[in-house]
């Protein structure tokens, strides 16, 4: 790995962590847990298109681990990892298909993040009824995914000359 790339991935992790924190400070609009913009996903979408899927996975996992250690605990880490792994897997596969643009990739990432967290919540609480949150989260995840996908697409286009 080139020094420039290492430095850039380090910056990406830092940015994703800041975005995680910024997002946690946005007050909840509706009383449904899990509704969020998914700001850190902006970094992941960008890396996925600009650098590569392996680097994206590394940055995402390190971000989840660091954010959980700073602001959460072991249990919150399990939830974040469930969401991140499912979301990344979906985005990477969808991108490999080359059928969709980064907007759909980001939407699937957002929605799968919610699905992963709800699945984890069902498992932990041993209550299948927790899945009743899912319909609203599908909608919010899609809207958030479109926003992140649009911004991500613009970034990829505008930073065209950067090579990592």
């Amino acid at each position: 790995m080139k020094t420039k790339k290492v430095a850039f991935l380090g910056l990406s992790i830092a940015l994703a962590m800041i975005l995680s924190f910024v997002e946690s400070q946005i007050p909840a609009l509706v009383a449904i847990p899990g509704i969020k913009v998914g700001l850190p996903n902006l970094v992941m979408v960008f890396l996925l298109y600009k650098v590569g899927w392996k680097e994206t996975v590394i940055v995402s996992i390190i971000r989840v681990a660091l954010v959980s250690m700073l602001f959460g605990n072991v249990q919150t880490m399990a939830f974040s990892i469930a969401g991140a792994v499912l979301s990344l897997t979906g985005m990477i596969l969808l991108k490999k298909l080359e059928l969709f643009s980064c907007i759909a990739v980001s939407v699937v990432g957002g929605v799968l993040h919610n699905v992963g967290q709800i699945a984890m919540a069902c498992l932990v609480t041993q209550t299948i009824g927790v899945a009743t949150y899912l319909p609203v989260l599908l909608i919010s995840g899609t809207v958030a995914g479109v926003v992140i996908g649009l911004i991500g697409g613009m970034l990829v286009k505008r930073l065209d000359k950067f090579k990592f």
Partner: protein
Amino acid sequence: MKKRDLILIVAILAIGLLSWGALELAKEEGAYVVVTVAGEEVARYSLAEDGEYELNGGTNILKIENGEAYMVWANCPTLGKTRCTHQGKISRTTEKITCRINKLVVTVYGAEDPDVELIG
């Protein structure tokens, strides 16, 4: 945005809206809240009686007021929006408050729900 993108997005939105609508229509006036920890029922309170209850040995405090239940305190460190104290008031069947860190779920049941036997 490609046409395929739009189809996928509309499809996910449609699934979400339809299932959301179906869930909302199925809701009825609630009578009881049942508290479960890791799937095991630990307590049951009537929505008709106002009160404040310590749940799960003090990890959460649930308040019932004017036929609505809400979480007033929890010991978990979860950041921001997923906290159970931010999940609002519940009063209709199937509505719930989830405290995933303490594995605790508070669910509203109606009076005629078959699996709710009146205790006491």
